[in-house]
């Protein structure tokens, strides 16, 4: 299983390359038309490029290590069983692991619900997977600072848990309604 996922990586999407070409030529045109802005644009872009290249390769290495060493099945195995506060904590923790994009998590969550996992835990898991992943927190720390990153993280954890309980109540209410 663990060997399968890395093999599925594709080259950069054509759309991204196309977008880069469009924005690149737009930038070139604007800089030719407005030479007085050249310094500001290239200076800013250069600063951000440096800051990006200081962390992005390392973040990718960390993601690569997780992709190879932590199999998907580990997440599935641990998430289906526990419930209550421990279940929520575990859903949060497993969601933060740097493993794959969100659309990988949907079928996983669906399979676990059909095996009896709580809906609330799956909402927490999906939300954690989407927005409090470890590599994201690293980038947020680098670009927005500790205060911003830490307060957004704590607020997100709080709201995500409440949201999980709300969605669960609604899904169960609808489920009984329709039978």
């Amino acid at each position: 299983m663990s060997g399968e996922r890395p093999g599925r990586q594709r080259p950069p999407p054509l759309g991204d390359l196309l977008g880069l070409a469009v924005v690149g030529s737009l930038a070139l045109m604007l800089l030719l038309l407005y030479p007085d802005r050249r310094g500001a644009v290239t200076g800013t872009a250069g600063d951000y490029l440096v800051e990006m290249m200081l962390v992005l390769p390392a973040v990718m290495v960390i993601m690569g290590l997780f992709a190879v060493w932590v199999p998907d099945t580990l997440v599935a195995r641990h998430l289906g069983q526990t419930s209550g506060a421990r279940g929520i904590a575990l859903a949060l923790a497993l969601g933060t692991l740097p493993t794959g994009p969100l659309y990988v998590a949907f079928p996983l969550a669906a399979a676990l619900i059909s095996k009896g996992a709580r809906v609330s835990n799956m909402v927490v898991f999906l939300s954690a997977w989407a927005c409090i992943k470890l590599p994201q927190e690293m980038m947020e720390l680098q670009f927005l600072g500790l205060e911003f990153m830490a307060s957004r993280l704590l607020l997100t954890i709080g709201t995500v848990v409440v949201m999980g309980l709300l969605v669960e109540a609604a899904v169960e209410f609808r489920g009984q309604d329709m039978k």
Partner: protein
Amino acid sequence: MNLTALIINGIALAGVALSLARDRKKAWQSLTVAGRFFLRILPMTLLIILAIGLLLGFVPPSRISQFLGEQSGAGGVLLAGAVGAVMHIPALLSFPLAASLLDSGASVTAVAAFITTLTMIGMITLPLEIRELGLTFAALRNGLSFVAALLIALLMGWIL
């Protein structure tokens, strides 16, 4: 190089060292995968960096703060949240973009709303979420995420 970058690179190096000690083949495989991840995200990264350069070079901060600054009020926060919800860029790249907006006069509240909806809500992946988890689940999760993002953003503006 700042402290954060040092720590992140330190973690990556320690991970590679540990991986090499445990299993040479898997370590090499991890690095290959990391290389592919990097190549895959590179075009979008360069695009965002160019866009940031153009944004800060051409759009005066007064214009940005007019739409996303303190004085833009609820409208600015809603605008940032809505743009974040429909935009489809890797979450990793939303942070430099957010930093550039903050630099040029956007409020903490608007920037927090932008990042939070961008990461939590997936318009592109919504059909898949509905198919896998049902309409009730998907609609509620995404809808509540928008409300949650606004709540988080307002509290962030209040705290920071």
